[in-house]
């Protein structure tokens, strides 16, 4: 073909540690990802045949569409399907795909994707806007081929292991459908440290660089790519020099990773003997094995709404019981905290959609389940029943004041009483409140008297305290985790829990980041819950700091006027007290400075 494309480096934000060399797998929103399989030489003819059969099937479909369109709209409008038909029969297109299958020895889907992406790329270079937009026709035909191919996919193939998923944005529902076991890394145009992509990537323990702005359009499926989270960058079409350098680096890196994975378990102590418990936040099943692997003391937060997002609707009580039993088994003796569905009607399909103008302040989380009591009762029953042979707790999301807790408790007590009356086995579960909105912080003492424990959801706490949407790039500059208002809110909540004699678990993304962890220790946190793969790093951090200095720094931060002042202070003090742990490059929130 043509000469080798030039190496392109693109800067973003590394949000999940690691370096990976792989192949681009482009993902458009809403379409299923295509994976690459190796096809043995002896199976190539079979694969070619599979492609031809699919192409014939796709042609037949288009022909039917064409006939329908002719009847309904007249011959002239049906010509567009003629174009699709001609594309499916195009000698050049067909031979390009067949050649790719044969020379690269890959499955037909991958070949269709690679050849299709190349075409779409050529289209994107066309100057005339109308003609350029006709790439939709090519896209349509490629999708049709992929769908035709998915009809008879044999199940016993092993997936290629170097897929790097590249997307403009990964919607939670798309992420839920991803086969994360076989993705090596993620790279997205949008997103930040607390985006869903980032959280899941850390959870599964694969590298991710987000906020690449305009990277997606430069890529084609099958392109070679390096994702280097430590340098906040991705490299497309790396030169042979770059590849060599990275091959050496990944070799040492994976050794290091292995060493940090074989970590100890149980609580960890600061150098001056303050004990902290580290738990795991989990959502998707692929994160479960991390609980034991990274030595978590049980599950501090199970985001149950995953059960819904995966299926795009409600899930039966029996299925929930099974899911919660599984979580209980994964968590072991330390138990698991299950958060009631933390979502709004917009997540549950049309029957619940009322098109709220302001969903973040609308009927969601505890409000939604209280308003849809049957959903809540079903989930509560499932948790109680699963609690019969496991240690489970319930945490109520987005509690605003004690009345939310009282209403929820009443329902939980009633369901327990019904199960008891029916003679069904169930477990008594304790009930906690998520502290994540300002009113809950202000009334923390009052809420503390009504619950068995607190959980501090720092992501939402930042968002609601500062009134900043974390998904909105326009106000990204106002989303400051180290804002004095946020730190004081955490401080107030932790103090209220101590006064009431109940435990408090800090479970937002703050708990995953060494720099924030040191501050949380200073603020008096003794229980942290985080994405499993972060545990070894957090454990190392805690074991290397002393609570006395951490407390002093935290006190200074609480007295600051602005987030800038806090960040500056943290930077100075951390490097001063713990030079072995911190330097200016490993404090992710401060990169703008």
């Amino acid at each position, binding site marked *: 073909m043509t000469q080798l494309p030039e190496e392109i480096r693109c800067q973003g934000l590394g949000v999940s540690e690691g370096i990976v060399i792989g192949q681009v797998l482009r993902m458009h929103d809403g379409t299923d990802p295509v994976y690459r399989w190796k096809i043995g030489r002896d199976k190539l003819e079979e694969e070619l045949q599979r492609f031809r059969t699919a192409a014939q099937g796709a042609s037949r479909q288009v022909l039917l569409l064409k006939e329908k369109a002719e009847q309904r709209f007249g011959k*002239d*409008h049906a010509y567009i399907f003629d*174009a699709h038909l001609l594309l499916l029969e195009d000698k050049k*297109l067909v031979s390009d795909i067949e050649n790719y299958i044969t020379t690269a020895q890959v499955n037909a889907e991958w070949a269709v994707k690679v050849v299709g992406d190349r*075409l779409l790329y050529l289209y994107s270079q066309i*100057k005339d806007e109308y003609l350029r937009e006709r790439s939709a026709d090519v896209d349509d035909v490629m999708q049709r081929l992929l769908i035709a191919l998915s009809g008879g996919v044999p199940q016993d193939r092993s997936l290629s292991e170097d897929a790097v998923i590249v997307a403009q944005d990964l919607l939670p529902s798309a992420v839920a459908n991803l086969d994360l076991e076989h993705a090596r890394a993620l790279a997205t145009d949008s997103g930040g440290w607390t985006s869903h992509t980032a959280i899941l990537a850390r959870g599964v323990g694969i590298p991710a660089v987000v906020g690449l702005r305009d990277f997606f359009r430069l890529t084609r499926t099958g392109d070679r790519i390096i994702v280097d989270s430590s340098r906040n960058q991705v490299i497309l079409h790396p030169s042979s020099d770059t590849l060599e350098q990275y091959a050496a680096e990944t070799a040492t890196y994976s050794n290091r990773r292995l060493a940090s994975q074989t970590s100890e378990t149980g609580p960890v102590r600061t150098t001056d003997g303050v004990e902290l418990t580290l738990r795991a936040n989990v959502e998707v099943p692929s994160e479960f094995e991390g609980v034991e692997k990274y030595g978590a003391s049980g599950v501090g937060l199970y985001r149950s709404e995953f059960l819904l997002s995966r299926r795009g609707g409600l899930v039966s009580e029996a299925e929930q019981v099974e899911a919660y039993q599984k979580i209980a088994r994964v968590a072991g003796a330390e138990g698991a905290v299950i958060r009631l569905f933390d979502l709004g009607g917009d997540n549950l399909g049309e029957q619940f959609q009322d098109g709220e103008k302001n969903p973040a302040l609308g009927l969601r989380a505890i409000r939604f389940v209280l308003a849809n009591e049957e959903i809540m009762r079903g989930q509560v029953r499932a948790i109680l029943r699963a609690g019969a042979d496991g240690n489970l707790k319930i945490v109520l999301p987005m509690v605003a004041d004690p009345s939310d807790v009282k209403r929820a408790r009443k329902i939980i007590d009633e369901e327990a009483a019904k199960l008891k009356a029916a003679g069904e086995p169930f477990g008594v579960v304790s009930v906690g409140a998520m502290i994540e909105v300002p009113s809950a912080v202000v009334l923390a003492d009052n809420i503390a008297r009504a619950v068995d424990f607190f959980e501090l959801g720092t992501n939402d706490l930042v968002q609601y305290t500062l009134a900043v949407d974390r998904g909105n790039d326009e106000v990204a500059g106002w989303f400051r985790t180290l804002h004095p208002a946020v730190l004081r809110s955490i401080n107030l909540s932790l103090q209220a829990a101590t006064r009431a004699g109940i435990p408090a678990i800090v479970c937002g993304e703050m708990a995953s980041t060494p720099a924030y962890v040191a501050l949380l220790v200073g603020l008096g946190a003794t229980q942290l819950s985080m994405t499993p793969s972060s545990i070894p790093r957090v454990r190392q951090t805690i074991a290397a700091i002393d609570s006395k200095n951490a407390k002093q720094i935290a006190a200074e931060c609480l007295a600051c006027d602005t987030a800038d002042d806090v960040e500056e202070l943290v930077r100075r003090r951390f490097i001063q007290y713990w030079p072995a742990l911190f330097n200016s490059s490993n404090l992710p929130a401060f990169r703008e400075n």
Partner: protein
Amino acid sequence: MIERTFTITGRLGLHARAAAKLVRLTSEFQSDISLRRLDGSLTADAKSILSVLMLAASRGTELQACVEGVDEELAMNAIAELFADGFGEFEAEPSL
């Protein structure tokens, strides 16, 4: 071999529907038929829709048709007719 130059007059250029008509037509003949942009080096196989679409021939683009084979005259006449007819398109808003 016969060569002849045509200008794209349709408002939307040689888009998918027009290209489909052209390819359907050229495929009826045995001759080899190519289209070349006069303003550049791009040449397309007129029997491949992919190839024709990649010409990105917008309104006003001049294309040189080159036909070679046993039925070259018949083919060229048919092509000329299609161009003269504006690909049988009405200048209506595109519906697709």
